[in-house]
């Protein structure tokens, strides 16, 4: 995942970005459309906030605030996932349900 791909967006329209709540100018101003060639996994910055390009459920893309992967957090903190053995030792009596 490339985290350095960023773009400052001033006015944006388009299916994916509209779904994130971004719309063009209204009122007396003409709608300004800036077409973006973005791929899943890229990041954009809008008004100082960072967003990640992610797939939507309809075959397109949308943007949302990023979710920092645990691998990055572990690297920063010097932690790591516990072993399967430790997990099973602690969770042997813990039930499942069907949700996930």
């Amino acid at each position: 995942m490339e985290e350095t791909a960023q773009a400052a967006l001033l006015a944006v329209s388009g299916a994916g970005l509209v779904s994130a709540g971004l719309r063009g100018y209204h009122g007396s101003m003409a709608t300004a459309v800036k077409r973006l060639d973005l791929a899943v996994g890229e990041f954009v910055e809008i008004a100082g906030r960072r967003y990640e390009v992610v797939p939507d459920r309809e075959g397109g893309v949308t943007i949302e605030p990023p979710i920092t992967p645990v691998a990055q957090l572990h690297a920063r903190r010097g932690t790591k996932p516990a072993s399967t053995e430790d997990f099973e030792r602690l969770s042997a009596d813990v039930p499942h349900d069907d949700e996930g």
Partner: protein
Amino acid sequence: MPDTPAGSLPPVSIEFGSVEWREEVERYDPRSPARAQAQSARKTIEADTTKLDWKRCKADGPGGTKLPGARKLYVPLGRQSASQAPYGFVFQLIQKPDDSLAWSMIAFGERHPADERTRNIYERAHKRLHGRYP
């Protein structure tokens, strides 16, 4: 606040990382029920005065979610049905630099979002674990 496993196993702490808290809980409006419920549940967990009703997450779950090594708590704590506990925390068991173990919160969110565009808590947990949605 330790989660004491059965037998003579040492207690395992429960941790809420600042990055995860910001990304998972503070994405909600400060006045939203979701955020209020998360804050209340965290306070109860950290007070360590209530037995927690843990459930294991599924290594191969619905919708392609894969959450091995993870457990969850439904929120509000102590309730089970999705109507009474619409939110949840997912935790990953981690090993810290001093070799101690901890349950680290990796996701908070809705179990069954009414808006189909909203990612549920299992999808969010999967993305944090694997870097992408299932």
